[in-house]
């Protein structure tokens, strides 16, 4: 194809997206569109399965049977969501094994929030309430993103996730209304998860590199800073309601903006964790790689068995 032809195709392509048409797997697409989508979608998928670990850490220790089944079901949903997203990414011509390879070698990123440790039961509440809360703000706009398989996966994810945040907030309510010890546990969890949750919505607009292109392709609808403000404005009253204090002395209602002003985020910490030096980066990767390697003989066995069965079937036919 000549350069001009490609330019022409690209122009038509951008026009289709602008008209709100969906792009489907076999449609022509600019290479950059494909690569950007592989990167963002797989990052999203990786976040789901790495995200299973901090919460999975508390499954065996959940304080009641009701909480235990809810947590199990939630972590299982995350596996399901990872699976939907990997499948959607595979439509772009990359295999799940290649995507795992990228994760395991550190080439691919996942949400940094999961590199923080879960130290008490209240962390299950804080993660559901804050982390899932921030995730939903990120995810809802993706239900109408331009790439069909991604949008469809996100619709299913968002539908299923609606219980996750409630599950977390309910844990917090119970703790906040509990004994002083429980309340302290809840406050401590909020203190530790608040700032990482704000960071989760991404670097400030000034430092964000992909935003403009992503807006055009509907991978993003609002800027990181707008999303962060939305998250803060919706979460602060929820904390007030259950008598917990947001750990930010500069947090103040701004009558003029009809929004909360808030303190400075520690971006050095953010970049440190992104670059692989958070409290749990190494452990998380070790857990993922370990599960994959320990599972190799199992996966091989299943393939070998399937092939033998196939052979037997063919021989019977002959």
């Amino acid at each position, binding site marked *: 194809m000549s350069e001009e032809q490609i330019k022409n195709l690209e122009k038509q392509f951008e026009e289709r997206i602008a008209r709100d048409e969906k792009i489907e797997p076999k449609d022509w697409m600019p290479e950059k569109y494909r690569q950007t989508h592989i990167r963002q979608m797989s990052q999203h998928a990786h976040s789901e399965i790495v995200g*299973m670990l901090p919460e999975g850490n508390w499954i065996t220790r959940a304080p009641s049977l009701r909480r235990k089944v809810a947590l199990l079901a939630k972590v*299982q949903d995350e596996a399901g969501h990872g699976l939907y997203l990997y499948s959607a990414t595979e439509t772009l011509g990359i295999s799940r094994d290649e995507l795992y390879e990228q994760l395991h070698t550190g080439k691919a990123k996942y949400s940094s929030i999961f590199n923080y440790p879960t130290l008490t039961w209240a962390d299950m509440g804080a993660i559901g309430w804050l982390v899932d809360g921030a995730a939903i703000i990120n995810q809802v706009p993706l239900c109408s993103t331009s790439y069909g398989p991604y949008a469809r996966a996100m619709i299913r994810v968002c539908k299923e996730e609606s219980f996750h945040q409630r599950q977390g907030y309910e844990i917090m309510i119970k703790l906040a209304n509990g004994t002083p010890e429980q309340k302290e546990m809840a406050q401590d969890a909020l203190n530790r998860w608040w700032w990482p949750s704000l960071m989760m919505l991404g670097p400030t607009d000034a430092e964000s590199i992909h935003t403009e292109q992503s807006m055009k392709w509907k991978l993003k609808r609002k800027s990181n800073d707008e999303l962060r403000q939305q998250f803060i404005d919706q979460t602060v009253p929820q904390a007030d309601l259950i008598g917990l204090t947001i750990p930010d002395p500069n947090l103040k209602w701004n009558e003029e903006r009809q929004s909360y002003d808030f303190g400075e985020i520690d971006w050095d910490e953010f970049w440190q964790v992104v670059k692989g030096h958070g409290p749990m980066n190494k452990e998380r990767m070790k857990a993922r790689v*370990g599960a994959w390697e320990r*599972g190799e003989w199992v996966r091989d066995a*299943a393939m070998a068995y399937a092939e033998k069965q196939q052979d037997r079937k063919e021989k019977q036919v002959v």
Partner: protein
Amino acid sequence: MKENLYNYILQIADNSLILGQRMGELCGHGPSLETDIACTNISLDLFGQVRSYYQYAAKIAADGRTEDDIAMLRKERDYLNILLVEQPNTDFGYTMARQFLFDVYHLLFLKELEKSKDLILSAIATKSIKEVTYHQRFSSDWIKRLGDGTEESHERIQNAINDLWTYTDELFRLSEVDEEMLEEGVAVDISKLKNGYYQKVSDVLEEATLTVPESKYFQKGGKQGIHTEHMGYLLADLQYMQRAYPNMEW
């Protein structure tokens, strides 16, 4: 309170609790995403059963204890599960072997429990049969895949079956509670399940090209509360919150 009935319920429920706990440990660490999801489903089914049983037990105990108190606040010696279900997830082979050896028993057991004079136990059995039928299908399929898969998988699953075999005989040994409740028409005569059990297990193992162990040496004690060393650690996790923060609601 009807102590025998209470203990009989625990005997049944504790199996599902401890096995559910073991399966729950794997969530997020399975050999593939799909298998992970499947194992979690089994765990969720078991915990669902557990809650029905303990809620019933709490009603019978009528001493103010809740399902959670019963599940999480007993001493190790008061847990009445069989030894098989507390064995650790040494590898996926052990996990599937344990599941399979229990599922075959569990299904036979529930089909008899459905006929119990106790209508609540019978109703729980009816609901559980569907779930456990699927568990048995799932674990049997994996026994075949691993047995008739690669050389390595064959060896691993054979080892797991051999090691866990020693805990199978206990499944059919009547405890005092079993005998008392049998007389009242509530309990299942588990000794009668034995032949059907070993027949079914052998059929699957043979199809999986595995050898049926011939060992005649068996371990027992779970139903009397005498467990293996693994049990204490499992309970330490299970009970952690209830022990560290007593008398609180979650």
